[in-house]
């Protein structure tokens, strides 16, 4: 029998003001039908100090509400100060940590930990090495097609697999800050201009097509990944955890919609229509799952596992 599916909330990727973020998590604790909540700054170390002081309070409130709290590390670590933030998380024996760079996995070796979606796990060989190192949950890269998910599902053994099912697709990381560049300010004196864009800064083509979203040093998709119609197939493939990336929409309601489908109460197509009414910041996409360009929405595509 397939174990109960978990709904997870990925770390907030955008630079929301610290109090907004705190209140967001308080509401998640009180109302959202998610099982796991990831906390921490993944994108830009310059932002870490703002929310840092609230983390203990927020983590405590989430834990009291029965959520598993996981602390996420930075994804791109380029200096000693950034390395120190990862070391500090890894050194706290009672924290559960998601490593978003292989350095985090190295520091967490030998104790249970999560491998985040910014570590490249494309195949069973890599999966086995990381599980040997103590990973008991692996969040897979967003560009994997269903054929790869099927193989990884069989190879996971006792480890849980997690996949993004909602939100902008995190497509790229850089040392360069594109928010600062767009505002013609230097990265060191950026004035945190990224705070103006709670879902990232819209990037359009010259002919006005929504294309990407800029979040400081990170680039995301314009479209919102939505795999409501693929949830059942994903469960059959052995994916047990389903990640919602926070966007500045009613995430409690978003979680409720996914929960309804996971629990078999709601029809996926109908749920997708309701999600579309709730979330109007961009169209949905599911192309990566179907082995296509990530930007497209494949309609009615269902996958039958081979054999």
């Amino acid at each position, binding site marked *: 029998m397939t174990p109960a599916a978990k709904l997870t909330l990925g770390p907030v990727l955008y630079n929301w003001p610290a109090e907004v973020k705190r209140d967001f998590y308080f509401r998640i604790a009180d109302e959202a039908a998610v099982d796991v909540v990831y906390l921490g700054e993944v994108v830009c170390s310059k932002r870490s100090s703002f929310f840092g002081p609230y983390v203990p309070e927020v983590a405590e409130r989430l834990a009291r509400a029965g959520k598993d709290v996981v602390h996420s590390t930075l994804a*791109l*670590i*380029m*200096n000693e100060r*950034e*390395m120190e933030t*990862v070391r500090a998380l890894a050194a706290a024996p009672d924290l559960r940590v998601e490593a978003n*760079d*292989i350095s985090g*996995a*190295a*520091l967490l070796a030998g104790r249970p930990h999560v491998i985040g979606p*910014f570590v*490249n796990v*494309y*195949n*069973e*060989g*890599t*999966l*086995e*090495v990381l599980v040997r190192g103590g990973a008991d949950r692996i969040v897979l*890269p967003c*560009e*994997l097609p269903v*054929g*790869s998910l099927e*193989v*990884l599902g069989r*190879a996971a053994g006792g480890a849980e697999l997690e996949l993004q099912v909602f939100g902008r*697709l995190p*497509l*790229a*990381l*850089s*040392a*360069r800050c*594109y928010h*600062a*560049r*767009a505002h013609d300010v*230097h990265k060191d004196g950026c004035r945190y201009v990224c705070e103006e864009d709670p879902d990232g*800064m*819209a*990037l*359009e*083509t*010259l*002919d006005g*097509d929504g*294309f*990407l979203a*800029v979040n400081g040093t990170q*680039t995301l998709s314009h479209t919102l990944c939505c795999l409501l119609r693929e949830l059942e197939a994903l469960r059959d493939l052995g994916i047990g955890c389903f990640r919602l990336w926070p966007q500045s929409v009613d995430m409690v309601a978003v979680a409720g919609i996914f929960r309804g489908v996971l629990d078999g109460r709601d029809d996926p197509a109908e749920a997708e229509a309701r999600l579309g009414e709730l979330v109007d910041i961009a169209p949905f996409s599911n*192309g990566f799952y179907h*082995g*296509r*360009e*990530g*930007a497209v929405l494949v309609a009615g595509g269902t996958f039958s596992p081979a054999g």
Partner: protein
Amino acid sequence: MSRTPLELVCPAGTPGALRAAVDAGADVVYLGFRDETNARNFPGLNFSRPELRDGLAYAHERGCRIYVAVNTFATAGNPGPWHRAVDDAAELGADALILADIGLLDYARRRHPETRRHLSVQASASNPTAIAYYHETFGVQRVVLPRVLTVTEIARLNAQIPVETEVFAFGGMCVMAEGRCALSAYATGRSPNMNGVCSPASHVRYEQGVGGMVSRLGRFTINEFPDGEPAGYPTLCKGRFVTGGCAGYLFEEPTSLDASAVLSELMAAGVRALKIEGRQRGRAYIAEVVAAFRRAVDAAARGDPVPPLGLGGMTEGLRKTTGAYTKTWR
């Protein structure tokens, strides 16, 4: 005072380019097999097994080494092509394997412990802890550093790690952390990590628009060129886009990396090898760029100032940048 020269690691996409690089003074030529196991999986490019065997003979007779890049991420359920690439390169006598995939590093260490393993830039190892992990777990002896670090950061890194470092010196430049970019996949379904391609020609179209030539990748417009201006290739991150009502090259201008201005600093920072990008380039380009860098590397080793390379005509959009090596780039 003379110092050990930086090792000059040069690209080859064809046997002709390999011979050109060797003859022009390369210490090492790097190349890949003709399939999706390497990050320059372009039509008509790369090496068959017999071509590698002949290339190895040509290089070794002239005191030059060959590194084989197997630096994409193996497809789940189909590791065969990647394993065979590692096996064949090792058995034919390649001087090192350039790898990025953890599963493949593990395979190479178990099956061919005697063949040197280098960590590809595609693994994006940008800190001492990550590099130590690859060294201790898979016996990696050299790391090709991602193009995200400044010279100062590279110097600090070299002081803390037990392995050699290799850095990019010239050619095309990713502005994103390598191996952590799915932009091409988002627009075309073809990905650097999985297919060894970025912004592939198969998905490029040029169309006459009202104001000039429009270049597209998949269904997205990447740039527009007024009539009479040459239309550049639509590499996604070198495109012109609109943010906040302004059109511009948000990620990067069409430009090439040229680190010759900081070559002495890179040497002083403890870098072991310089890499030239461009396995997709022709023989004449390779010969000229390699010869120029041979002169530059030798001058730096003698402690002389690095002479101007004279490669202005070789850079993309005729522009050059020292990229992430200088902090202001960020």
